[in-house]
């Protein structure tokens, strides 16, 4: 049995079903993200693990013990909130020491542990400040130190980085990952930011409509999405409906070059082919799978991003690594292909 086990979790608010039969096993020390758009049930799931909300059905167990009936304050779970939720009337040190006070840790031990926790997040010099005297990034670190100092069994992160600016967010991601590894603490992150989920997690649970639609390591989930929703939510994707796009794409050439066996996958429910923009390559007309015209060209620093208009299909996204100046101005005709192994086949859902 895994360390944290969610089994058949259901939560409905009157007639609205927020979480619909969610099961998830998380190993000790693992970092798992719940990723999905707002309203997918990820925050409700987090609140049920924390104990702020009671599941309508299903069980939650930690280390083999069912905790559904355990009150919040006895669960030993650390939480970092999106808005940090620091106690405004307490200093940084008292914020961090609060959990130890509640556990009646002797003062000397308490002070030593508070100091160590603040050192971990590089805030030892700000112990005497009040939260409103700190920047957003510093408040974030206090919240993290406050959750970690109690040495919780599980750390829950509720969109902890979404209020930080982009540069700071990247720095915090790296720091958070290092700290989590070092402490070996089992962590659940709730986020709608796919980059954050991919950067931090051992596994990502992509959620949609109160369920987990795919649970995979970041690379696996990105390379082999199992549904169009996952393909679109984890990064950008070009999705070709095989049956509908025969006019735009030369499927026979794909079959000859050893690509996935499209005809076998077609079946009754149809199928989609997912090709990531960076897997698309410009080529000569004789080996092209499809051809089109550059509609827009955007320079992103590390790469060029093109929107290619393809007749009888629509727009295809192409990302090309920035090795040189781009000669493909808007309006120029281009031809595209990809390596057969770079395309993922997604069985259709009948729609």
């Amino acid at each position, binding site marked *: 049995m895994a360390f944290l086990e969610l089994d058949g979790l259901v939560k409905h608010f009157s007639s609205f079903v927020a979480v619909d039969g969610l099961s998830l096993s998380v190993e000790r020390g693992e970092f798992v993200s719940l990723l999905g758009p707002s309203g997918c049930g990820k925050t409700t799931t987090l609140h049920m693990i924390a104990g702020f909300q009671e599941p309508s059905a299903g069980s939650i167990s930690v280390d083999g013990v069912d905790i559904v009936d355990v009150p919040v*304050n006895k669960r030993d779970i650390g939480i970092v909130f999106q808005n940090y939720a620091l106690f405004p009337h307490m200093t940084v040190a008292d914020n961090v020491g609060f959990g130890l006070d509640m556990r009646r840790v002797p003062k000397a031990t308490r002070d030593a542990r508070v100091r160590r926790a603040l050192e971990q997040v590089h805030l030892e010099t700000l112990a005497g400040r009040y939260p409103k005297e700190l920047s957003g990034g510093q408040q974030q670190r206090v919240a993290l130190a406050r959750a970690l100092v109690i040495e919780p069994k599980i750390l829950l992160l509720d969109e902890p980085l979404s209020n930080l600016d982009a540069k700071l967010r990247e720095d915090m991601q790296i720091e958070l990952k290092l700290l989590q590894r070092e402490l070996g603490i089992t962590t659940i992150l709730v986020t709608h930011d796919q980059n954050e989920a991919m950067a931090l997690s051992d596994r990502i649970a992509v959620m949609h409509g109160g369920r987990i639609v795919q649970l995979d390591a970041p690379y696996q989930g990105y390379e082999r999405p199992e549904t169009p929703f996952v393909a679109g939510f984890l990064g950008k994707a070009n999705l070709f409906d095989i049956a509908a796009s025969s006019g735009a794409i030369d499927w026979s050439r794909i079959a000859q070059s050893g690509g996935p066996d499209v005809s076998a996958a077609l079946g009754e429910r149809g199928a989609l082919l997912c090709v990531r923009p960076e897997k698309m390559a410009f080529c000569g007309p004789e080996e092209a799978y499809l051809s089109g015209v550059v509609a827009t060209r955007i320079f992103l620093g590390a790469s060029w991003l093109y929107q290619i208009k393809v007749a009888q299909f629509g727009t295809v996204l192409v990302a090309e690594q920035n090795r040189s100046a781009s000669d493909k101005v808007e309006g120029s005709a281009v031809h595209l292909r990809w390596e057969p192994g770079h395309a993922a086949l997604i069985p259709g859902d009948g729609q």
Partner: protein
Amino acid sequence: MLRNTPLSLAFHTALVTFVMAPLITVSLVAFTAESYLALPWSGLSLRWFRSVFADREFLASAWVSIQVAVFTATLGVALALPAVLAIGRYQFPGRDAVNALLLAPIPVPGIVLGVTFLRFMTQIGWNGTVAAMIVCHLIVTIPFVVRILLAAIVGLDKSIPQAAQSLGASRLAVFRRITLPMLASGISGAWIMAFLLSFDELTVAIFVASTSVKTLPVWLFEKISWGLDPSACAASVLIIAGTFLAMLILDRIYGLERLLVGKSAES
């Protein structure tokens, strides 16, 4: 910030003048040396202040007023706080009814309340007691206490008590260590507001008062009805000074603007 145009400047000057003029006149008359109401041109004197402090009825009614106001404010906050915590934080059957009940005294005219209280207190044999006065003032002031506390509680971030709970705090510990300190300014604001409302209240008190138990406004009202002398002005000056002091304290700890306009002051 809007700049004052000459017109609005004139308007504000007029407004302040009309509000301040009676207060200033009364304050000046209080220092007259004459034995009738007169501006103190013929000489300044503190004789009317001496006469007020020598008046046992003034001292007795001031004492009643202070007792009533302190108990009204303290009981009001103690009763309203749990109710407001429930209304502000939770959805439950009857929530709107409780809310409406707590605010109900506002639209009822004071004189109607006064007559009703008189009838009721006489019926139960409480009329003319300090306790009756406190109960009546409690009912009159509680809507304001509820409003102020509700504003303070609704402004509290819900995730802060959740964070405290997750760190091991029991419900009682969350209340004592987190909720109460965070509400401190709201609670003291509500307390002082209730104190001032009770201390200044006349309409209801006039019905519930007796010859032995009367509040300061009732004493002053009777004094003026029976025959006016400058000691009434001196007593008024004392009340004005006391109220002004309380408002000053209120502004310092809570912010009058937030209290009266309902604007949330950035802190």
